[in-house]
């Protein structure tokens, strides 16, 4: 039986030749992402903004009365709600952000939430409450803080691990690639104004893990080749390493992708944001492993000596002592 080979053997693509343009492109994208996040902001869900999100099914209708709902809930005086269909046409999610003036009041979110649900179920007898999330301003603030802390801690911790297992240049390369991946994912969420919730933080943390998989495979091969071909110029060696591992990089990303796509399209609607973020992160992460993490090694001056045991003072003394003793004999 002839086996499938997605990547032909012995590819020799000069990835590193384009390292500068791609690096510039990446930097522009990172800058653009942060620009978006800082100017347009992230579309915080109730987890991070506080307020209420309720999911309803209108059991006796084909289509939910979206415009009327918007008016009804907007009429309560807590600002304009976000009303959108969710799965079927008769299912909606209604999000009412917490007004700024009651952000500090602990029970305010629950009271507003109760009022929203009571108003809707009072007006529409066929409205069934499928789910309700109400988060007070204080708890939302704590979530924001914990999320930021977790992201930074994860990036730093994995970079430290890479540093310990490889060399500091590899740690910096990995950290840089991760920063790029996280930035671009945030940029995408800001650009499309997708709801940014706790689930998305979970997605980004798993992106940090999986994006690193490809990076590690390439780094591992670079280390091996550095020991093997000590005279080879670094750019050439990196190209060789990326090419040798190309089939793995493609295959591992592909298996994850084919597992995720059905979940993205047929999975539960509540998981869409999480799965979409991981899928986007998969592409961004694979790209950054090849085009960012490796070239940085050139600029940071990795040499083949990095993995050859250095001669320490003790070694030198011993050697001198041995030479001296030989001289005596």
């Amino acid at each position, binding site marked *: 039986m002839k*086996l*499938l080979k*997605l990547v032909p*053997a012995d590819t020799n693509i000069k990835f590193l030749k384009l390292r500068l343009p791609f690096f510039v492109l990446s930097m522009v994208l990172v800058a653009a992402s942060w620009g978006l996040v800082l100017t347009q902001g992230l579309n915080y869900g109730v987890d991070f903004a506080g307020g209420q999100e309720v*999911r309803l099914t209108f059991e006796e209708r084909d289509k939910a009365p979206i415009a009327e709902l918007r008016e009804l809930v907007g009429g309560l005086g807590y600002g304009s709600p976000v009303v959108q269909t969710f799965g079927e046409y008769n299912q909606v999610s209604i999000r009412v952000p917490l007004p700024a003036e009651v952000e500090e009041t*602990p*029970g305010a*979110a*629950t009271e507003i*939430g109760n009022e929203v649900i009571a108003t809707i179920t009072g007006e529409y007898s066929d409205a*069934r*409450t*499928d*789910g*309700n*999330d*109400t*988060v*007070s301003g*204080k*708890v939302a603030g704590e979530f924001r803080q914990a*999320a930021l802390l*977790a992201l930074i801690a*994860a990036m730093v911790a*994995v970079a430290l*691990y*890479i540093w310990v297992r490889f060399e500091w240049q590899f740690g910096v390369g990995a950290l840089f690639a991760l920063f790029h991946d996280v930035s671009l994912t945030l940029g995408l969420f800001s650009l499309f104004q997708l709801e940014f919730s*706790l*689930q998305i*933080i*979970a997605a980004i*943390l*798993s992106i940090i*893990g*999986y994006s*690193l*998989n490809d990076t*590690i*495979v390439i780094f*591992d091969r670079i280390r091996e080749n550095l020991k093997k071909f000590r005279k080879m110029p670094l750019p050439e060696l990196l190209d060789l390493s990326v090419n040798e*591992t190309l*089939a*793995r990089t493609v*295959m*591992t990303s592909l*298996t*994850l992708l*084919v*597992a*995720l*796509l*059905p*979940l993205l399209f*047929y*999975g*539960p609607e*509540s*998981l869409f944001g*999480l799965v979409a973020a*991981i899928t986007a992160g998969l592409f961004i992460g694979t790209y950054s492993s090849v085009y960012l993490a490796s070239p940085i090694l050139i600029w940071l001056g990795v040499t083949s000596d990095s993995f050859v045991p250095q001669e320490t003072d003790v070694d030198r003394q011993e050697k001198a002592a041995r030479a001296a003793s030989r001289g005596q004999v």
Partner: protein
Amino acid sequence: MLDFPLWKKISLWSITLLLAVLAVPSLIGAGGLISSDAFEELPQVNLGLDLAGGSHLLLEASEEDVAAQRLENIEEAVRLAMRNAEPRIRIGDISTADDKLSFILDNPGDIDRAREELQPLIAGQGITNEWDLEVIDTQRIVLTPTSAGLSTAINTAMEAAAEVVRTRIDKLGTREPTIIRQGTNRIVVQVPGLEDPEALKELLGETAILEFKLVDKDALLTNVQAGIAPPGSQIFPYAEESDRAGGFEAVKRLGGIRGDNLTDARPGNDPQTNEPVVTITFDSQGATKFAKLSTENVRERFAIILDGEVLSAPVFNEPILGGSAQISGGFTAESAAKLAIQLSSGALPVPLTVVEERSVGAELGADSIRKGMIAMLIGSIAVITLMMATYGRFGIYATVALAFNVLILLGLMAGLNATLTLPGIAGFVLTVGAAVDANVLINERIREERKRGRKVIAAVETGYKEASRAIWDANITNFIAGALLFWFGSGPIRGFAIVLVIGLATTIFTALMLTRMWAAGWLRKGRPADINI
């Protein structure tokens, strides 16, 4: 690397099968095929609230409330201690401003005796005092709460509050609630199957502190309505449901009793008016106090005050000696039932506010499980097809290992009594997609070694050996990210992290160890001259 003695094979297989069998009850349970009591006893994966439907409430007590309550208590205790001293120590100008208790001794010469009397009140259980005592101008005493004393008080209050919350929920008749303290001043309540937490929130939203206080009959009605209390009295509004809603009542500060010595509270109806009432029964200590209060004040009005609102202010027609009393106050049958639960489970030591609420309907949860399962099935088939088409026999090994991986993951979760949440389903799919990565790395390496001209056995051996390094590194970094996710997340997110982290461990086991054992067995038995990879 390819040497597998019999004991190793037997132990690998027994671990695999044992853990896989653990998954069976959960799998059957998900299909709903068997439902018997014996079956329920078997370890199964718990479904999170987002899959099973239910409510999650995060309750918070304000630390200021605890501090204020504590200040009130120490004021009472100080008054009592000074009055009971032999001879009595006279004090005045008591103030509780700035979270401090301050008062003046009428006679500065009493200072040493006062100190002695106060010592047991301010000493804590440990070495640090619960209050700092300070004397200003030889006769003013100021008690300031110490931070250790305050945190002990908060802790005690929260312990008691959690217990009251548990009792109240149990009396509501809901099944298997989870009630745990979180942080210093929070309580998490999770009730599976309860889709509408409205009744629960009402039940927990009130402290239910019941007080009986004598009405100050000398107070001028106009002053009372204007909120001006006569000396020694305080003013409470009538509850909205009572027949005198909007009105106020002036009651005497001292000499009342608190309704926390109750043994029972039941809803009922007044035999004459048929109005819903709550009948309370005091314990012996409470009964004595109540008998004394009613005997000394026959023909006087007294106010029944619940959480700072007057329910009614009836007259003691005769001494009440039986230790039971009837409370009326414009109740409906529902509100009487609710109050009965609240009173009989004791008052909350501190008010609780809902700061986070999440509820999911069971239908949405069931729908999520179904969609998640279908998506996982399609995804698995796609991964399996890809692996077999690319790596042939070694792809089959990876596939079988993947099946065991999912089973063992589920089995371990059941064994650990872990909770499967909606994001956890995504975690399963991610594990399926990423588990074969290890096999991809190994198989690609074997391909490479064969191409370089190594013999079959050497190629497989080198493949496993060289690929292991990157596999371990990748899994450890993922583990770091997963552990941080577990630390950061709560509820559903934590469920995601659990699946990811356990999945990494099972992946190392199945993708690295099991496939190696199978590959080694085949190489040993078949002694192939070439492999199609």
